[in-house]
């Protein structure tokens, strides 16, 4: 079984400060990991993914995430948050060899960037 934990319900950060959204995962084999962002009344937009290779993954809108196998984590980061980054963020995982490509999503983190 595969699962994701996003321990914080809401992350508040001042504009210009670093932003971190935490994610830990559980899979039986090697993971493929994803981050998505959702704005109100919209679908999910893909931000970045880790498949293999460099543990630091860079994605859209200045976001990056670091894969840590020993801690089974994939935290999302941005060096300087913008008010427009306020949204709902989802971490997702699937087992690399799973043929159905089904994702397990976390419950989401609401990010609020304070001007």
């Amino acid at each position, binding site marked *: 079984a595969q699962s994701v934990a996003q321990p914080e319900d809401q992350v508040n950060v001042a504009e210009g400060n670093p932003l971190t959204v935490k994610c830990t995962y559980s899979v039986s084999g090697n993971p*493929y990991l*994803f981050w*998505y962002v959702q704005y109100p*009344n*919209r*679908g*999910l*937009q*893909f931000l970045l*993914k880790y*498949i293999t290779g460099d543990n630091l993954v860079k994605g859209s809108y200045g976001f990056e995430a670091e894969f840590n196998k020993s801690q089974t984590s994939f935290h999302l980061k941005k060096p300087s948050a913008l008010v427009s980054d306020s949204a*709902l963020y*989802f971490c997702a995982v699937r087992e690399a060899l799973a*043929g*159905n*490509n*089904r*994702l397990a*999503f*976390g*419950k*989401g983190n*609401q990010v609020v960037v304070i001007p």
Partner: protein
Amino acid sequence: EADIYQTPRYLVIGTGKKITLECSQTMGHDKMYWYQQDPGMELHLIHYSYGVNSTEKGDLSSESTVSRIRTEHFPLTLESARPSHTSQYLCASTGGGRGEQYFGPGTRLTVT
């Protein structure tokens, strides 16, 4: 922007009505998914398809049904809508392999 479309975007309908939520993608993806999401909450997989004539139920039990007659089209049907069906429904697709899922904009359904 991903080439995956959902109609209608918003629907308000009375109890007992039959409704079909449309989802189509122009990327030639073989795998498609339907998720149910209450506002600001987590996603629950309700149906998925590996390809034409293949459909499976997801993790969350749903009274809806789906069909996959064409690769690009994956409609979801509720035979008799109830207030408990009020939610947002998101459609997604992927080409498989290492690819991410691409999401449509969603349908916000309200059953009165």
